[in-house]
């Protein structure tokens, strides 16, 4: 039983057709990496899953909550379903997007308290568990401005986890980091994968993709060109476009 099922997804930005009939399904505990050139639509795909971008057409299903979108305005029922989907997906952004006016611990408990209505003390217990997991317990009361990029991103991961989502969505979480800070973030992510967290990761880190991902999806010009086990995609890609993309990447790195 798939936990995420995207079917016939289309997204237009004005005249631009960014996603063309994309279908993808992800099973519980699976780690799926989406790779592809910039502008291939991979981030948009991710952002359509929790409706940060509203799809033009198609169906998104997360944890058996399904939203089918066409040109019409969203109904009340659809809006409710989108809210449910957001509750069971955690998202990590390229730019971290921590709340600068809140301390680290308050960043973590903000949504559990306001959205889920958890008592503060209970939320703090959960938050501290995840803060410990990303190894930043000593930064509990700092403000985001005083953290390094890598630390910010680990806090952002902990913040998403504190909502105890069923799926984690990562939108190029290491692209805004200095090279020496990427390692700590990858480490946390690898740890999560080992623990069986379901993850959909848009990434440029081919190392992470090949080592951790159960499945790799290659996108180009708004379409999924090829998907398969990491070994297969990286060693014997079927499609010439995938081959070309990987060749160029391997030559530059």
């Amino acid at each position, binding site marked *: 039983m798939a936990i995420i099922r995207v079917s016939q997804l289309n997204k237009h930005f004005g005249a631009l057709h960014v996603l063309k009939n994309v279908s993808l399904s992800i099973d519980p505990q699976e780690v799926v990496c989406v790779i592809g050139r910039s502008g291939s639509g991979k981030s948009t795909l991710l952002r359509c899953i*929790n409706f940060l971008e509203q799809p033009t057409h198609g169906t998104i299903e997360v944890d058996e909550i399904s939203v089918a979108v066409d040109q019409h305005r969203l109904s009340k029922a659809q809006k409710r379903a989108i809210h449910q989907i957001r509750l069971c*997906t955690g*998202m990590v*952004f390229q730019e971290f*997007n921590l709340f*600068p*006016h809140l301390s680290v611990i308050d960043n973590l408990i903000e949504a559990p308290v306001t959205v*889920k209505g958890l008592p503060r003390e209970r939320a703090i217990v959960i938050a501290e568990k995840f803060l410990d997991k990303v190894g930043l317990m000593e930064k509990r009361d700092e403000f985001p*401005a005083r953290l390094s990029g890598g630390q910010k991103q680990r806090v952002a991961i902990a913040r998403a986890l504190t909502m105890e989502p069923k799926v984690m969505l990562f939108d190029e979480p290491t692209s805004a980091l200095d090279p020496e800070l990427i390692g700590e973030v990858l480490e946390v992510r690898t740890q999560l994968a080992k623990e069986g967290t379901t993850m959909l990761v848009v990434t440029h880190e081919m190392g992470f993709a090949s080592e951790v991902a159960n499945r790799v999806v290659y996108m180009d010009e708004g379409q999924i060109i090829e998907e398969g086990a990491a070994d297969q995609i990286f060693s014997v890609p079927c499609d010439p476009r995938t081959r070309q993309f990987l060749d160029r990447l391997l030559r530059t790195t």
Partner: protein
Amino acid sequence: MAVESLSQAELILKQQEHAQHTFRGRVLVWWGVILGTLLFIFSGARIQIGPIVLQTIQFDWEFIGRVSPIIRQGVVVTLLLSATSILVASILALLTALARLSRVAFLYALSTFYVSLIRGTPLLLQIVFFFLALPQMGIILDATLSGILALSLNYGAYMSETFRAGIQGVGKGQREAALALGMTPGQMMRRIVLPQALRIVIPPMGNDFIAMLKDSALVSTLGFVRDLMWYGQNQGRREFRSLEALLVVAVWYWGMTIIFTWLQSRLEKRLARGER
């Protein structure tokens, strides 16, 4: 290498700071000179250099001493008038900014109409209107209330633009993070956007309060609000000593403005610290 270039940068910074410091010192001296000259002009001294006799302006100090305590009674009224109005104006400005950013056509229309109407008419007219024109429709307002209402509506319209900029100044990423965490648009606004927008808006709000302090003097024209300006005019006219009376009032306004400007710059510095 890196360390050396850093210390060089620091050296340049120190030099600039030093230059800035001595410049400020000289400015301060000149302020003193200008003030001293002014004081001299109004000192009433009579100076004779050879055949030239220089008579400076003579104040009636006895009068100043007598009316100063009376004029001082207006300070509280001016401060209360301004503080109440800025408070009401802030609430109005926030609501107007939210309406302006809303996708509901009626709210958008209402806010733009209000801002256009208020900004397109004189503040003095608005003040007089509430006091003199509304009674014709059966609404009789106390002069102080008319003043507060007019000042609030006027400043609310101007400040709504500041509030709007503040709300828009909170990045798109912040909204997305809030929504992705499952917040409703209302929760996102209250918990994430507005607290950050407030930090952006407080310094310009300080400026508005200072401007309000001075604009509130217009309310004295109604004749029934005994603020600083009213006492100044009233006392001056009574003994044909408006020069002294109005100068006393001016010193009060000026002093309050300087104090609040200083407070505001301190607040601004505190808000800027540790952010982003």
